[in-house]
């Protein structure tokens, strides 16, 4: 019997070996190489969470932008290489032409006090076509082929590849207007419906009108007029917005304003399509460099080169240093370089990182989960800032980094009795805490240097944030030896004494000062809490943490039921206005009884006045002066006491080139270049299976049977002997 079992194990081992060797290449390759055409250049990467929306009117998350921004092209975009960020025309031929109108919609100069509307006129590039898509297929009579009236006709169509034919059509200015109307349509549940209605003329009226419309299936939005939109000719259209909002151009660079062909909208409203997930929210139709050919959010998403993509070229100029970094080697070459991009679902950070090191993912850092945890291992803080560890350098991995236009901050509730208020004592109390809270140390321990310490609400790289000595927060830092140095704890203690809390005790009663920090339960950990408590302990202040779930956290914010809190803001566009409004008084959720963004409830009349003034100004010296004044006010008042400006990275395997991190735009896949040969070679080199433990384990297992069989035989004999 034992022999039989042993043979069975042997057989199992053999089959294993055969199956394993049957696959080409290294055993641990997570990709199905056989499914890929060998002549194609493929980019391998991953997504962390199944994307929920691909509809450009609805999608509003970074993870989704990573995919759909390669597909949809809004009128404007960001220059790939230039820093600070610069807008450039994308689907548009040139930057929009802006005119200012009075109440009678007559043109007036921009500095006139009567400006009530701004009119943006956009002219499109010539020769832009949509990707091949079944929605455009017409029969010989000119009717659309894939139009059905009944669910039974559509039962066989489960994915987009089930449609035999595809066709295309040229881009029309009307498609942009169609998309804006889609945002206004309450049926589409666009997250920005309320926000954009404040600006775009006539949007709320259209929403109200559409709410009352009876609908059965597709609603042709072309039949509805919206006051602020106008199609001038097939390549020109205009959008009218209320008042002056210089930042509107930045919105035109977001996928909300990408064109949607009405044919696609009608196509996806075919009866029964929704039950098979055949929706615009699932299969995008765009004019961009790539098109989505497979969408299985549970496994993988594949983008392929759009054969109808317009002529587009690699930028010929870049930021200083780009040429040296080899980023201009392909200047003027036709893009895109990659034929196919395969995104696999990979939720956990560790496997993601391992696969990158094994060479199965070309870049690391496309998902934010990577940044927080695993760059720990890749980066060290060198004398010149962050650098790669020796191990990474040994693998010839390169690093491209960019400061995100974002700020993570910790603030006070200015309405709180203990820490809030605008008196000098309270200011000093907050300043003392701000000094004691060593954000440099936090960044070193918990972020491994992948952030820049907080100096004010505006992150570096955005106008208004100054470099060098001029940019430091003089309330917390001194400028010594060409560096910002945090003020001493002694100074902070002195401030605290002046604030009425000598050694952290109430000057009158001797009661220890105890503060409460509200944190999100998911975002905290034992080690972080320990560290946070230690910061205030330096001043003799006790810190108590209150961890709650996200919903409750939001609720506390909106009711002003918090004392200290932490929050973050990822800007939509690189303009100081998008940061300074976070401290604008009327934005306070308690004051406006709405979902305001001023969680500190900071309400300083001087600041508010300056903000209102600065909001409608064009960028320039004059505006910068106002911003400097505002920053100074905020630094003295300390509604936010610490924080950081996160950096974003790509770690690139050596076969990846033309990769530069862009803090805002995700539409950079078309520039990326990959050397498949090097990749193949390195993958084989790095992933030699180590068979020793496997063989050793098997041998030990088999070896164990020998004494067992012997013992059994002996025993069997023994029994027989005694019986006799």
């Amino acid at each position: 019997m034992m022999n039989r079992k042993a043979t069975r194990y042997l057989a199992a081992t053999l089959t294993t070996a055969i199956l394993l060797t049957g696959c080409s290449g290294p055993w641990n390759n997570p990709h199905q190489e056989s499914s890929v055409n060998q002549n194609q250049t493929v980019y391998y990467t991953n997504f962390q969470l199944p994307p929920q929306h691909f509809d450009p009117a609805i999608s509003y998350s970074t993870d989704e932008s990573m995919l759909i921004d390669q597909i949809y092209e809004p009128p404007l975009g960001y220059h790939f290489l230039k820093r600070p960020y610069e807008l450039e025309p994308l689907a548009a031929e040139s930057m929009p032409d802006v005119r200012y109108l009075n109440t009678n919609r007559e043109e007036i100069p921009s500095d006139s006090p009567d400006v009530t509307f701004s009119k943006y006129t956009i002219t499109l590039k010539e020769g832009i076509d949509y990707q091949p898509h079944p929605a455009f297929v017409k029969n010989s009579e000119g009717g659309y082929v894939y139009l059905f009236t009944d669910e039974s006709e559509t039962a066989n169509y489960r994915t987009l590849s089930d449609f035999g034919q595809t066709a295309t059509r040229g881009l029309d200015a009307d498609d942009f207007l169609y998309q804006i109307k889609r945002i206004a349509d309450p049926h589409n549940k666009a997250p920005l419906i309320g926000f954009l209605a404040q600006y775009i003329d006539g949007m709320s009226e259209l929403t109200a009108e559409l709410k009352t419309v009876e609908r059965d299936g597709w609603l042709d939005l072309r039949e509805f007029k919206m006051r602020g939109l106008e199609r001038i000719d097939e390549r020109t259209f205009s959008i009218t917005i209320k008042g002056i909002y210089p930042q509107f151009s930045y919105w035109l660079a977001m996928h909300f304003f990408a064109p949607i062909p009405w044919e696609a909208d009608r196509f996806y409203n075919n009866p029964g399509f929704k039950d098979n997930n055949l929706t615009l929210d699932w299969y995008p139709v765009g004019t961009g460099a790539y098109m989505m050919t497979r969408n299985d959010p549970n496994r993988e998403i594949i983008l392929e080169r759009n054969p109808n993509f317009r002529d587009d070229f690699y930028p010929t100029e870049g930021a200083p240093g780009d040429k040296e970094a080899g980023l201009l080697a392909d200047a003027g070459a036709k893009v895109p370089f990659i034929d196919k991009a395969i995104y696999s679902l990979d939720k956990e950070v560790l496997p993601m990182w391992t696969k990158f090191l094994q060479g199965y993912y070309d870049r690391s850092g496309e998902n934010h989960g990577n940044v927080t945890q695993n760059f720990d291992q890749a980066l060290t803080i060198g004398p010149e800032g962050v650098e790669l560890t020796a191990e990474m350098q040994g693998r010839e991995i390169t690093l491209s980094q960019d400061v995100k236009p974002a700020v993570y901050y910790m603030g006070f509730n200015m309405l709180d009795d203990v820490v809030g208020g605008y008196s000098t004592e309270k200011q000093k109390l907050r300043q003392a805490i701000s000094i004691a809270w060593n954000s440099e140390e936090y960044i070193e321990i918990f972020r491994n240097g992948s952030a820049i310490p907080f100096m004010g609400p505006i992150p570096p790289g955005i106008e208004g944030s100054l470099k060098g000595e001029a940019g430091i927060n003089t309330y917390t830092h001194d400028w010594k030896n060409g560096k910002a140095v945090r003020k001493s704890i002694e100074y902070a203690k002195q401030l605290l004494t002046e604030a009425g809390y000598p050694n952290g005790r109430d000057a009158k009663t001797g009661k220890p000062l105890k503060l409460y920090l509200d944190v999100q339960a998911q975002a905290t950990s034992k080690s972080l809490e320990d560290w946070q408590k230690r910061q205030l302990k330096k001043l003799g202040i006790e810190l108590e943490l209150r961890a709650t779930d996200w919903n409750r956290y939001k609720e506390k914010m909106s009711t002003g039921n918090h004392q200290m809190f932490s929050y973050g803001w990822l800007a939509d566009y690189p303009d100081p206005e998008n940061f300074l409004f976070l401290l604008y008084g009327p934005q306070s959720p308690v004051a406006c009884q709405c979902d305001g963004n001023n969680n500190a409830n900071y309400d300083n009349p001087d600041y508010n006045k300056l903000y209102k003034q600065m909001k409608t100004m064009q960028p320039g010296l004059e505006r910068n002066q106002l911003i400097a004044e505002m920053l100074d006010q905020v630094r003295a008042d300390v509604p936010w006491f610490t924080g950081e400006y996160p950096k974003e990275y790509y770690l690139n395997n050596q076969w990846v080139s033309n990769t530069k991190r862009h803090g805002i735009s995700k539409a950079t896949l078309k520039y990326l270049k990959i050397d498949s040969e090097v990749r193949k070679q390195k993958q084989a080199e790095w992933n030699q299976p180590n068979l020793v433990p496997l063989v050793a384990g098997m041998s030990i297992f088999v070896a164990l049977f020998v004494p067992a069989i012997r013992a059994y035989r002996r025993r069997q004999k023994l029994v027989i002997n005694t019986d006799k």
Partner: protein
Amino acid sequence: MLAYIIRRLIYAIPILMGVNLITFLLFFVVNTPDDMARAQLGDKYVTGEAIELWKETNGYHQPLFFNDKEEGLTALTETIFFNKSISLFTFDFGQSESGRDITSDVSQRVWPSVMFALPTLLIGLWVNICIALLVVMFRNTGLEKAFVISFVGLMSVSYLFYIIGGQYLVTRLWNLVPVSGFQTGLDSFRFLVLPVAIGVIAGTGAGARLYRTLFLEEADQDYARTARAKGVSEVTVLFRHILPNAMIPILTNIVIVIPMLFMGSLVMESFFGIPGLGSYMIDALKSQDFAIVRTMVFIGSVLYIIGLIATDISYTLVDPRVRLN
């Protein structure tokens, strides 16, 4: 028999209703429809109107349980609870809060779950029985004692350790299989071999120990002793007599587990990136997708009840004395 099954299925209805009510309560005490809308719409620039609109189009604008604006019975039917529950019982799962068709997602994700769980169960069963038989063969020797202690040792290691350790050694140091992920077809072997192996090893301690006691119990029965007395070899006694008899409790114990295989293993799936139902459920919980959570709980309880019924039936099949009534 058929009558019995039908009756049990009818009994299942109040249980499912109870489960549905509990899910509903637990979910909505923690989350309000407003929270759900925010989770779907994002946190930036969301206005109150957008939230109201979302709730209305997704059917969360009504009161939870009792609609005091309506008269009579409609006061109970024009509520979120009623409207959301009624479709469940017709097995119409509808769409997730983000607009995906749940039925197609579930039917797609169930296969990876089963492909991992079924081999783990079967191979585990086979390995455990083999080891247990081996131990029983050497009963009352030092070998047995060593085995039993090592079973307890295996049982005392946290499940997470097997995973962390196995993944670290096999995928990181030895490069034998992919770290995580999944592919269909024959290729799935490479992705499943490690999780299945870990699942089997982690279950060996408890499993083999349990089977050992079952076998030992049979080994001392009269029929086994008689066989031995007749001079039948120990191996034959074990395989011909003890194994078939001990299989009855083993198999009846397993029947209840089988339907649950479809639900997937939560921890394993997330560690090894298997896109099964376990990770589907966790994703839904994280993104506060009530429609999915509710559906998964419902499917889970249906499967559990099926398991219970199947167990009862299996008793009658193996033991003619048991009657269902």
